């Protein structure tokens, strides 16, 4: 009897969980469905069955040059992530393996820069960017995204590096490994998973950053966030096209995101929840 009730309760919980999950996922699903509808269909009442046209995807590309903001998003998110890693890997390394009394203070201070409200420095940054000719350039936005995500990258790497046991280095040294061998054969293989996780999460964060990218770009360097935001004014009936653009904007990162659930928890809580 006990067994039967567990199976029963499992079915009940399954049904509830699936209903909740589908309700939460519904707006995304509906946008994807709408992207395969024609424009008249898109506003013609509720329907989950599109006529299956690819017209919108083609129109978004031919009329609005979708490929350009997409390329910008790819360049900005990957570029800023790699730049941040170049800065952060040595720093996190030093903090994890040669900690001093001040290491903790430096880490906390880095975290505190993340808490500075972006809008508080909007004008200085805007004026600096204008004076240095960085407005609406990929270089300017890459620098910006690097700086705002650097604290998270350092923190995340630090929490990973800290878990590499120091004894293993001593053991390697006893076996006669020199510093170079130590780095190549012992430390790097142990650090790679942490670096990969950090890379993944940071690309997601940079891809979706929607304050600085909108403020500091107009056309040339505008990534998808700014591109989609430019659709906000009502320009007649364009929902199917908007849905197509939206689907393409979120699909790559959604798929990356599904693989990064664990890293997300760790990275965004600064290691406080694992």
């Amino acid at each position: 009897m006990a067994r039967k009730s567990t199976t029963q309760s499992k079915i009940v919980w399954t049904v509830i969980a699936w209903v909740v999950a589908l309700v939460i996922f519904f707006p995304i699903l509906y946008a994807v469905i709408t992207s395969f509808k024609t424009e008249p269909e898109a506003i013609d009442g509720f329907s989950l069955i599109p006529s299956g046209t690819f017209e919108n995807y083609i129109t978004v590309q031919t009329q609005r040059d979708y490929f350009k903001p997409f390329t910008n998003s790819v360049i900005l998110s990957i570029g800023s992530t790699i730049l941040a890693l170049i800065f952060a890997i040595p720093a996190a390394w030093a903090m994890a393996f040669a900690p001093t009394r001040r290491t903790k203070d430096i880490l906390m201070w880095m975290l505190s820069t993340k808490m500075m409200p972006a809008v508080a420095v909007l004008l200085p940054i805007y004026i600096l960017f204008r004076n240095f000719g960085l407005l609406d350039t990929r270089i300017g936005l890459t620098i910006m995204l690097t700086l705002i995500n650097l604290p998270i990258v350092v923190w995340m790497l630090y929490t990973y590096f800290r878990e590499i046991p120091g004894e293993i280095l001593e053991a390697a040294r006893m076996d006669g490994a020199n510093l170079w061998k130590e780095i190549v054969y012992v430390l790097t293989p142990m650090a790679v998973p942490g670096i990969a996780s950090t890379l993944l999460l940071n690309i997601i964060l940079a891809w979706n950053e929607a304050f600085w990218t909108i403020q500091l770009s107009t056309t040339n360097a505008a990534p998808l966030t700014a591109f989609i935001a430019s659709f906000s004014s009502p320009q007649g009936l364009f929902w199917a096209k908007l849905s197509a653009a939206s689907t393409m904007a979120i699909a790559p990162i959604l798929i990356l995101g599904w693989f990064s659930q664990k890293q997300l928890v760790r990275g965004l809580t600064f290691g406080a929840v694992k």
Partner: protein
Amino acid sequence: MATQNTKTLARLMMAPSVIALLVWMVIPLSMTLYYSFQNYNLLTPQNVSFGGFFNYQYFYTDPAFFTAIWNTLILVVGVLAITVIGGIAIGLLLDQPIFGQGIVRILVISPFFVMPPVAALIWKNMIMHPSYGVLADIAKFFGLQPVDWFAQYPLFSVIVIVAWQWLPFATLILLTALQSLDGEQKEAAEMDGANFVNRFIYLTLPHLSRAITVVILIQTIFLLGIYAEILVTTNGGPGYASTNLTFLIYRTARLGYDVGGGAAGGIIAVVLANIVAIFLMRAVGKNLDK
């Protein structure tokens, strides 16, 4: 333990990051502080003069300021309430043995990866639109008058969108914490005859308290800066009904070209964010000591 050599090396390795962040923090912030005491409008850049506390006074006496502060508070508290309560509920649900758990999890966390402008536009056009949205379709189906969400309940609509984006984050963190709850403890409590409610109050909730604190603090940092969702849906309106502090400063600075006023608002935002930050640093710092 560390020799002088490794210490020097460690400093050199940290230097690029520390210097980059120091420059990034000190220069713009001191500029903001400086501008906040200047009468400086980008439309009349030749007339820059020392303004004392005029900008602060201007911000403080602007009725929109208190509306914005109030809206910021409602937005943050509203989203926190929905995401924390919803996150615990969904976390408990996903912690049950269910069929297709992996897929359910993926569906639930997906909204977090949707960029803010897309999330806001999907909700604005396809869900909450008064004539073509799904909610309007549902209302019509039941013979009711569809609600014009963004005109009648602008702030509430923004709260719904933002809560939808952050619910996955809260769920994921609370679920991670739930899964680390000792199974033996749960069983022991069950054996002792504790029912679900008692187990939840005396065992689960205390275990979650730390994760809940982290969720609240981190979300607050991000929620204070909500911008894109307001920009593409209500643009702060009608009037100032959905303008938060971030959006008010953006309006003053970028749309009003008022550098001094925007800077004073920025300094006020920094002070408010710092109050939150102090609590967050304590919570995270405690973990570091362990």
